[in-house]
Structures are given as structure tokens and as C-alpha cells.
């Protein structure tokens, strides 16, 4: 069977390209929502942790955060996904995509938290002192002085975390979500040819990652130029 024939069979016949297209949309939807959830969780945890480290306040929330970080970073994301789907939401009828967003968001939040905490701790303590000496309280100093600087420093690392998450969602098929990876696999199971469908899946991921990485690189250079003003 020639390439053209194989291509026709895998993608054109019975509109099989739709598996890839619909899968891609699902992958992007899960990634986008999980990135948002991860950022919210991550910033929250980072602020609690750095507040504890700098002021020794919020001991109990800090303990909870540390437990969260240890458990999430110490177990595979697939296991977390399975537990959230089959254990936590076992008797609750919710959409699988929702479960995936929760699982990947909670997972990503742990990594975002450590990135952001590093960013906060890298800001000179003199900035905090200057803010406090003017009469600003701790939250105001964080909001207006520390976070804008920390956020700018970690923006490239956060963007890279989002790119990693895009690839990590490829395990969503474990709970029978028809994402991009699963789409290619469905085609494989129908046509009994593995090469083209899986290659197509790989190329689509690669193109997305390369384009996004380029964008991050550009962002990074722009931020660096900003620093030299």
C-alpha cells in the first residue's frame, strides 16, 4: 500500500481526520483551563509559603501547602488523574473533561507554586522593608511592590510550565477522554496502521511546542530589554 493510499485510509476515509481535530480541541481546552487553575493554586500556595518563610506567620496553611507539594510532586500525574476520576468523583456524575481540568490543574499548581515562590524569594528583602517603612501593610507591599517584580522574573518559567502541561495532558486517555493522543490511537485501532496516525499526533504536538517555545523566547528577550532601559 502506497503512502497516498495509506494517507487516504487513515485521515480522509470516514472523515477520520475529525478524531485528530476534535482531539486537538479537547487537548487545548483541557490545557487552557488547567493552566488557569494551576496558576491560581500556584500563586496562592507561593504567597502562603513565602509569607511563612519571611514572617513566620501562617504556620498551619504553610503545613497544608507543604503536604500538597510533597504529595503532588511525589506521585505520577496519571495516578493522580485516576484517583480523582475513579475515587474522588466515583459517585458524582461530572464530565470527564472537568475531571481532567481539575487533575491537571492541581498537578500543575504544585510546580507553578515552586516557580513563583522562587520568584518572590529572589526579590531583595530591602524592597519589602522599603514598602513597610512607608506604612504599607504586608499585603499592600506584596501586591504593589513584590509581586509585579516577581511575576516579571518568572513569566518565562511559567510559560514553559504551560508548555509542559500541554504534553502532559496526553495521558487523559486513561479515563477515556478523546484528546489528541487518544484520537490518533482510535484511528490506529480502526485502520490497523500505526505509523501515520501516531506520527501525525507527534507532529501536531511538536509544532505547537516549537511555536509556543519561540513565543516564550521572544517574550524573554523583550523582558530583558525592558530591564536595560
Amino acid at each position: 500500500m502506497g503512502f497516498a493510499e495509506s494517507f487516504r485510509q487513515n485521515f480522509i476515509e470516514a472523515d477520520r481526520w475529525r478524531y485528530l481535530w476534535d482531539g486537538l480541541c479537547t487537548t487545548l481546552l483541557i490545557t487552557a483551563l488547567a493552566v488557569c487553575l494551576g496558576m491560581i493554586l500556584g500563586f496562592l500556595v507561593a504567597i502562603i509559603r513565602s509569607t511563612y518563610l519571611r514572617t513566620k506567620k501562617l504556620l498551619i496553611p504553610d503545613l497544608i501547602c507543604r503536604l500538597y507539594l510533597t504529595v503532588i510532586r511525589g506521585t505520577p500525574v496519571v495516578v493522580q488523574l485516576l484517583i480523582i476520576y475513579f475515587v474522588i468523583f466515583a459517585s458524582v456524575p461530572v464530565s470527564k473533561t472537568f475531571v481532567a481540568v481539575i487533575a491537571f490543574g492541581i498537578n500543575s499548581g504544585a510546580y507553578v507554586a515552586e516557580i513563583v515562590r522562587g520568584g518572590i524569594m529572589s526579590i531583595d528583602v530591602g524592597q519589602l522593608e522599603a514598602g513597610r517603612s512607608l506604612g504599607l501593610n504586608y499585603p499592600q507591599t506584596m501586591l504593589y511592590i513584590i509581586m509585579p517584580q516577581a511575576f516579571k522574573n518568572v513569566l518565562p518559567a511559567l510559560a514553559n510550565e504551560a508548555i509542559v502541561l500541554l504534553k502532559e495532558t496526553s495521558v487523559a486517555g486513561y479515563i477515556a477522554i478523546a484528546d489528541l493522543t487518544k484520537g490518533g490511537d482510535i484511528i490506529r485501532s480502526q485502520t490497523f496502521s500505526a505509523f501515520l496516525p501516531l506520527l501525525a499526533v507527534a507532529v501536531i504536538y511538536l509544532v505547537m511546542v516549537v511555536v509556543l517555545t519561540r513565543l516564550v523566547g521572544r517574550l524573554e528577550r523583550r523582558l530583558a530589554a525592558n530591564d536595560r532601559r
Partner: protein
Amino acid sequence: MIDVKDLTKDFHKTKVLRGITEHIDKGEKVVIIGPSGSGKSTFLRCLNLMETPTSGEIRFDGKEITHLHDREINQVRMRMGMVFQHFNLFPHLTIKKNITLAPVKLKRMDEAQAEKKAMELLERVGLPDKANAYPAQLSGGQKQRIAIARALAMNPEVMLFDEPTSALDPEMVGEVLQLMKQLADDGMTMVVVTHEMGFAKEVASRVMFMADGVVMEQNSPQEFFRNPKNPRLKEFLSKVL
């Protein structure tokens, strides 16, 4: 205006301040000198509670401030400006925003009032053309003048200076001291930790020598430098003068 009684401060096991009792009047310009590690910066930082004293009292306008809640501490800090050795300007904000941030966020002024005040202060520190520049574009001396303007924007009653010229290149020390002298002439109450003996002689109403966490000697600048009594002070002055 500021009354300090038996103030001590420990860092872990190290006793940095070993009991300081002092009184600072309104309008006084107190200059604190002493070898490094003598506790002079720590003493200054206790006055606006950047450091929490281990024991003792600090009264500001008669009110005990060492056991206040955060909110009241912030009220106290609004009335005491502080200038740091390393300037600590906010690098992500323009010069004007550096100055207006605190008065606006603390609702002392609205945006327009704060900007007007900022321009007045920039005029006063001689840098009106830098309003829209960023800190990274300024020299060290200019940064410190802006830091002084930023502290003044809150209309403080006291200004605390923590080695304001120690991080500056020698040729920039003069412009900062000049500005501090103007401030002194305008009647501002000032507490200054410094190594600039010339400034102490010329501007101080009282010079204080600290070593080993206590005030060893203090006097009017004339007497202090002409007639030092404490042997540690004599030794110190022989090294720095």
C-alpha cells in the same frame, strides 16, 4: 518626641543592643557613629519597628509603640520616614510612581494631589526632569535623593537615615549630604547613622557614639570631637579622622 527606655535587642543568642535609654526632642538632629557591629543600625531600625525590640520601651509622642498591632505600627511608620543604605527604590515603577505610591495607596492624597506633591519634591531634590525615568537610569546619588523624596512624600515628622551615603561612589556623597543639610535647616527631626564625620560636625545638634550595643558617649559636636573622654571613642576617632 521619641523616648527610649532600657531597649535591648537579641538576634538568636547575640546581644546587639544591651539597654539603651535615650530621649530625642523635636527638631533635634542626632548623628550616631560607631564601629560596625556596634548596634547603631539596629537601634535606628528599632525606632520605626523594622526590628522588634527584645525588651524595653519606645515612646513616640508619649505613646508606647513596641506592643502595638500591625495596623497601629503602620500608622507610626507613616509618621517616620526611613532612608536605606541601598536606596531600595522600586525598580518596576517610574520615579514619580515611586514617590506617589505610598501616599495614594494609603489614602493620604488622591492621585492628582500626590503628583503635585511629587513634582514639588523632585524640584526640592533637584531632579524634576527625572519624573518619568526608571531607577535603573539614575546614578547612585540621584537614587538616594529620590529615596529621600519618597520618604518625604508621606510628610513624616521624623526622618531616619541608615548609612545613606555608604553605598555611594565618593563623588556622589556630597549631593546627598547637601540635601540632608537642607532638610536639617528646614527644621526636620533627624536621626542619622553615618560614617561622615564632616556631616556630624556641621549638621548634628548632638553626636552619639555607640559600641558593643550601648551608647558610650554623647555630646554637642564641638565638645564631642574636640574633647572625647571615653577611651573607645578616642581610639575610634583617631582611626577615622
